[in-house]
Each structure stands twice: as C-alpha cells, then as structure tokens.
C-alpha cells in the first residue's frame, strides 16, 4: 500500500498549480507565434480568481445536473491526475486504477459536461454536447489501442507499472510501435483537449465551437471550477503522454534530489509537448466537423499499426 499522504498532497498541489500555468503557457506561445503579444502566462490564475469571486447566473431551465457537473468535472480530472506518474514513477493513487480507470474518469467528466450542455435548453449547448460526444467516441478506440500497445509491452495497465517496466531491461526507447502509438496518442490529445485542428478553444462561433458551446451558460465559480478542471485534464493527458512514452527522469526513490530532478524533467517534457501543440495549432487550420473523423481514423490506423508492429518485432 503506497497510500502515502505527503505524496498525495504533493501531487494534488502540483496538479492544481501547474495546470493553469500550462494553459497560460500555451496561450502565450500561440500568441507569440501569431505575432501577437498575448496574455501573460500567469493570466489563467487571475482568470480563475476572478471567476471565483463573480456572482453566478444559472439558467432558469437548468436542473441540479447543471450544478453538479462542475464538481464532477473537477474531481474526475483531479482523481485521474493522481493515478498518473508525474514526478515519481510510483503515482500516489496508481493502485486505485490505471490507464483504464483514467480513461473512465475522464469520460465520466465528459459525460456530465455534455449533459450540462443540454440542460439549459439552449441550442448551442446541445450542439456542443453532440459534437463532443461524437468526437470522443471516435477518439476513444485510437486512444485505447495506443494505450494497449504500451500496456501489452509492459504487461500491465497500471501506469506506474508501465513506467517501472520501461526502466527495466528489455525496454527499447521509442521502438517503432511506441513511436506510432505516440503519434496516435498525440492526435487523440489534440482532440481530447479541444485543440485545433479538431476544436478551436478560442472561438465562440456557433458553427465551429465544440467544447466552448457546452460551457456557454456557465458563469462565476462554476465556470472557474470547470476551467480549472479542464486545464487539469489537459495537464494529466500531457503528463501521461510524456511519461509513458518518455519515461526518463522519474524519481524512483524518495530523496529530495530525485524529486527535484523528476520535477525538472516533467516540466521540460511538458514544455516540449506544449511547444508541439502550439506548433500544430498555429500551422493548421481547424478542420470541418465531418473531416475530424478522418484525422481520428488516421490515429486509429496508426495505433493499429503500432500494435501490429509490436506483434512483428517481438
């Protein structure tokens, strides 16, 4: 039983604090690349604080589902984050669930968010829910296959076990199957975090918005909670991608030095990934909704190839 309270607290704090920073970083870099000055990378913290202090307006048609959703979204993202190895190889809550539970928890959050989109009887919300559920549905098999590829190599679905296995003998750094799986996962990451070319996080145009459409009726502290939850989810997914495909620098023991090193590595990996995301977002245009499946099926094919090559090269 590795339920060590300090580790849990530390990772919770890390998730809570790092997530807005990551969002800010991406926004800032994106602006820079687009020749804008952009907001400060700390801006998301201020946004959250402001949202928290604001009064709330809740639609008269909304029900308790609308009010429950922010909590669900926030808690699922946070719990999922506790299952992912971030600084240490042994994630604090990895016993409570691995990759499958993580996917399940994120799906639970999405489920409620989609319901909340429908709840206030607005046409936009329903549109967002419909699109969000569709895209996640077709992204899910690709994600699962990519995870399976890694899980099969490691013989476990437990994320810590996967990371630990990667530090053992017989682990090939970035073997072909992992490379393809990584590519698939990256596409899924773009879809899951609502990034261009799948979704545009900065738009409020009804024809294009997906994720934002569901949040349209939220305000005040609920919106804060949701924004925070969403950014935690983004952090979790990126950490997942970073750590299971590039399992270097994770703290294996409990010394402060190892922790520091681990944190450093994590931040570096996240910066690289964020850079990649920003690069993709800047160089691509948003796809039409019905072109998205093509992209995601490409991810699926990549993941399948990854799997087949696992079979071939072992």
């Amino acid at each position, binding site marked *: 039983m590795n339920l060590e309270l300090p580790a849990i607290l530390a990772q*919770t704090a890390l998730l*809570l604090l790092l997530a807005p920073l990551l969002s800010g970083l991406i926004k800032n870099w994106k602006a820079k690349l687009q020749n804008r000055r952009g907001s400060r990378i700390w801006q998301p913290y201020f946004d959250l*604080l402001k949202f*928290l*202090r604001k*009064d*709330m*307006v*809740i*639609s008269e*048609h909304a*029900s308790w*589902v609308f009010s429950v959703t922010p909590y669900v979204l926030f*808690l699922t993202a*946070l*719990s999922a984050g506790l299952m992912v190895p971030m600084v240490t190889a042994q994630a604090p*809550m990895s*016993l*409570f*669930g691995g990759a499958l*539970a993580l*996917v*399940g928890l994120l*799906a*639970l959050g*999405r*489920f409620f968010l*989609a*319901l909340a989109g*429908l*709840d206030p*009887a*607005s*046409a*936009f*919300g*329903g549109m967002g*829910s*419909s699109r969000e*559920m*569709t895209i*996640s*549905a077709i992204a*899910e*098999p690709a*994600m*699962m296959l990519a995870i*399976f590829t890694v899980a*099969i190599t490691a*013989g476990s*679905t*437990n994320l810590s*076990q996967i990371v630990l296995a990667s530090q053992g003998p017989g682990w090939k750094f970035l073997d072909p199957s992992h490379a393809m799986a990584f590519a698939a996962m990256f596409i899924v990451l773009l879809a899951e975090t609502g990034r261009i070319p799948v979704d545009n996080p900065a738009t409020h145009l009804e024809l294009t918005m997906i994720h934002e459409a569901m949040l349209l009726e939220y305000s*005040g*502290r609920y919106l804060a*909670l949701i924004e925070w939850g969403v950014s935690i989810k983004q952090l979790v997914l990126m950490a997942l991608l970073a750590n299971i495909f590039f399992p270097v620098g994770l703290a294996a023991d409990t010394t402060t030095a190892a922790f520091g090193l681990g944190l450093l590595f994590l931040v570096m990996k996240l910066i690289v990934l964020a850079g990649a995301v920003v690069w993709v977002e800047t160089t691509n245009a948003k796809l039409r909704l*019905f072109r998205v499946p093509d992209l995601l099926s490409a991810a*699926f094919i990549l993941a399948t190839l990854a*799997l*087949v090559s696992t079979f071939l090269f072992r």
Partner: protein
Amino acid sequence: MNLQPATLLVASLCGYGIGAVAGLLFMRRERLANALSFGVASLSALSGLLAALLFLSSGAGTPAPQFELLPSLIPSIKFTVRLDGLGAFFLLIVSMLGFALSIYSLGYAKGYFGRKNVGALGAFFNALLLATTLMFVADNIWLFLITWELMALTAYCLVSFEHEQPETRDAGVLYFIMSHIDAGCILLGFLLLYQASGDYSFASLHDIGAQMSPGKRDAAFLLFLLGFGIKAGIVPFHIWLPVAHPVAPSNVSALMSGVIIKTGIYGLTRVCFDFLGTPPLWWGVTVLTVGTISAVLGVLYALMEHDLKRLLAYHSIENIGIILMGLGAALIFLHTGHPLLATLGLIAGMYHTINHASFKGLLFLGAGAVLHATHTRNMEEMGGLVKRMPQTAFFFLVGAVAISALPPLNGFVSEWLTYQALLQGFGTTESLIRLIFPLSGAMLALTGALAAACFVKAFGITFLAQPRSEHARHAHEVAPSMRFGMAVLTVACVLLGLFPTAFIRLLDPLTQQLTGQQLSAQVSLADGLVLASLTEKAGTVSTLGIVLMFVCLLPIPFGLWLVFAQNSKTRRGLTWACGQPGLTPQMEYTATGFSKPIRMIFKALFRPRRDVQREYDFSPHFAKKLRFESHVEEVFVRRIYRPLRILILLVSRRIRALQAGSIHAYLLYIFVTLLLLLLFAL
C-alpha cells in the same frame, strides 16, 4: 430456523405458481389480482434471491442440492432440479430483477386498471418468472426444453399484452417465430449431445464433447451458438429484439432485457463450459468476433433511435456483445490452456451479465415511468422531466452512468475485467490470431464511448431542458412502489460497482464448477478494497477507492468557495438565445439532431433516408412549413431479412399454385405418383 437453499428455491417456485393462479382467479377484481399476483411474485423472488445468495456464499465446496420437483409421470421425462453454481448465479439475477420488477409492477399495473386484464398480466408475469427460474435450475434436457418453450410462450403473451396496437401484434409474432427457431436449434444441439450420452440428465452430459466426433461437436456448438444467440439477440439474429422489447409493458421489457435474453448467455455458458469439453480455437474466436460485432452495431443502431425503449433494446444487443466478448476470450484461453485467464474472462462475462440485468432493468423501469407519465415513447416529445420526476431522473441517471461503463459504477467494473482478460490474452498465443484481443478491446472502447454518447442523448433529451410537448409538461412523479422498484436496482448497481471483490467471491462456486478455478482470493487486494486482474502487477482498480478519492477531494472546491466566493450570489436568469426573447422548446437540440454527426460519420452503414418537404408562402427563400423526416433502416433487415421474406413468400406462392382447384390436376397428381411408383418398382 435453518433455511436451506433448496427449501427456499421450492418456496420461490411455488410462490410464482400461486401468484399465477391468483392472478387468473381474481381476474375480475383487478385491484386484488394486482396486489396478490405481484405481491406474491415479489416474495417469491425474495425467496429465490435468498436461496441463490445462501448457496453462492456457502463456498465452492458445497454440494449442489438436487431433487425431483415432481414425480416422473411420463417415461424419460424427469423434473430434476439442481442448484449448482451457474444455475444459482442466474437464479440470483432473475430473483433480483424479479423482486424489483414485482414491486414496480404493483404501481405500474395500475395504469391498466379498467382498460386491460391486470390479472392476466400478473399471471403471465408470474408464469414467466416461474419458467425462467425453473429453466436456470433444470438438470435435465427435457425439463430444460419444456421450460425454455414455456418461457418463450409466456414471454410472447406478455409482449402481446397491449395487442390493440398492430405493431405489438407484429412484434409478438416476430418474437415468437424467432424464439421457436432458436428452440429448434437448441433442440437439435441437445439431440446431438444426447446421441453421444444416451441419457437426459445434465450430469451425464458433463464433458460429453470429448466423446463426440469433432464434426458433430462443431455442429452442436454452431447450433447452440445460433439457438442461444438468437435468444440473446446477437447480430445478425437480433432483429426481433428492438421490435419486441419496446412494445411490451415496461416491467416486462425490463424482465426481457434483463433476464430473458440472458437465458441465451446461460445456455451458451452451460453448454460451452460444461458440456462440450475443451473447445477448438475457432469457437472462442467466433464468439469473440460475434460479440464484438454485436456490441458495436448494437450501440450504433441505438444511437439512431429516438424511441426511448427501442434505444434501450438496442443497447441490450450491445451489452450481450460485451458479455460474449468475455466468454469468447475465456473459450480461447481454455483452448490455449490458460484456465486462470479463462476464469477471468468467464468472470468478466458473468459480471457483465448481472450488471446488465441491473442497469438495463433499471433503465427500462425508468423508461416505463416516463412512459407512464408522458404516454409516449418518443424522446422528441419529452424533455424537462428532471424537474417533474426528480427521483426517476436520478435513478435513470445512475443507470445511464452504469451502462456507459463509467466509474465508479458496475458497468465500469465488468468492462474493466473484460479489458483485462483481452489484454492478457495477447500473451497467451504466438499466432496472428492474438491480434483479435486488442482489436476487440479497441472496439469495446468505441462501444463504451458511443454508449456514453447515446446515454447523454437519452438522458439529456428525455429529462433535461424544457418540455417538448404538452404531455411532458404535465408529467408527474410516479407511484412510490415504482420508485421503490427502481431504487432497488439503483442500489444493486451501486453495490455491484463498489464492491466487486466481494461479489466475485460469490462467483467462486460457478468458476469452480466450470473451469475448476477460484479467483476470489487472487483478484482481491487490500482487504477487498482493490480489484486486481489476477496479479497486482497486471492492473488494479478500486471503484470504492475512486469514490473515497472524490470524497476526500471534495473539500477543495468547497474550500475555494469559503475562501474566495463567500460574497458571490447566485441568481436565476434566462438562457442565452442570441438576444432573442422567448426561448422555445423548438430551439432545443433534438434526439435526431444529437445523433446526426454519428449518422453522418457512419453513413455507409446507416444509409439514412431523408425526406424534406417545404411549403412556401410567397418567396422561395422563406419556407412557411418545413417537414423533415429521417429514417434509418437496419442493414440486416434491408439486405437479408426483407429479401428472405420476399423469397419465401414468392416460393410459397409458386407452390400454392399447384393446388388451384382443378380436380383434373388433382387426379393427375395421384396418377403421376402411381405411375412413378410403378416404374420405380419395375
């Protein structure tokens, strides 16, 4: 008092019998008939539930109670009943659901007062439960087949209960025809087994496959797969299911989807794991493939529905597919000689079976409550019910979360086990066939995600937003007994979700009987808090742990409120409607609209037919009226069943022309027959 499982079982069976008779006797006094038949049914179900729990919890070593229900009156027909692990597990399912449904029905049947024969409803309901229960504990081919047919017969009567609607009559006919075909296949399968054993008792059939020639064994397997598969609603033999389940009274729909289609799973498990011996590889591969296809197609077609009960019926196909994936994997592992993994697959399948019974039962009851309140099954006419029937909405939501395989409820646990079985299967064989495991796993993921999408639609369109019709606007919460029935199943969903290790201990007698393994010790970590897949290393999950995490993390948002949001106020306001006054229900997203992206993505499969009619007033740019229709017809109906039906009718018509009324032709037939025979004898 020392209660024995056998005694309780007999009490339960007698109870159903009494309930059926009571329903018939007091047909004229419907209140009495209702109270008596469903009341007795709930008590009987409770007794059956106790019997199953007592037996299952007594451990794997307990000998299965066996006794003659009735003296044998016709030679070779024995009414031997045996409560073994597998039977007891399914007895648990039928009794659990029976209990919840009977209580629910007490309120639901009131809707029929003065309109329909409630006594007959109660009688058939009891008879169906009796036949099903008896079928699960039958220990002899004859008793099995008799109860199997009786089950189909009583289920037919219940499906046709609201026979005033033509669609109900058609659905009943289709259902009964398909059940008769499946009974025929099963009968043939059993005859093949009997040929080898020469005895009707199930005990003599144990591992009989070893004594059969491979050809006969394969034939028997295919016949059973077909027969039980039709009953279970596997693709492409599922066409009756989305037709028959919705038209039945909702309590019956719940029973049909929850238990009756599971009889197919029961039969397949019984036959494949108990009778047919070590399977060849292709059996498992077939079952796994069939399961995968059923799961994906089931959920895809479910998404296209806006009839709430039809939607749920299609989900039954999906879930049967998921169950079969577990069983198919188990069969493959039996072939490759991995009994532990086989047991894991079996547990996954069985777990999903009871899970599906609980959440699908719950969802159908919820749909029944909605139907009761709004008098429509069309989701496009619902909406806003969460405010009018809050408890029903809550129960339905729990069911929706469970069926979408979301943690921490039970659907997640069984799908997790299925994933684990599939993933570990990859290492069991070196052949290319092992790719099937991760690929079906991916399809399972697709299924799960589509199911989530579908239930966002089902719950969102039905319960949330504004009412879309007068019916929905005047809906009201249903009777307490109905809510209690739903609550029972909700509790079951939650318990099965949170305490998987405890439940798997109940499966020990079953796995011991079928694969000779017991996994309860191996899958349980940290005093049962954590569920492991065989080893801790291979993967762990703890639904209870996740809930605990939620609880522990919940102070964070509340802490934030305390710190930052003390002075912020909440008020109600209008939903943003682009600045236009008056948000009308017509602006809401519809069920059809919700599923449109999926429909477009899988256009090749669905072949949606659109029919748009516009009426213009003066300008071609301003339509006065717009009528939009969209139909999706199943590919199997379009490509197989309809052509088949046309062909049969055509051939029949040709044959019929032989007998067109001319006595000369008739004489000629005899003449030709005689001549042929004479020539033959020459």
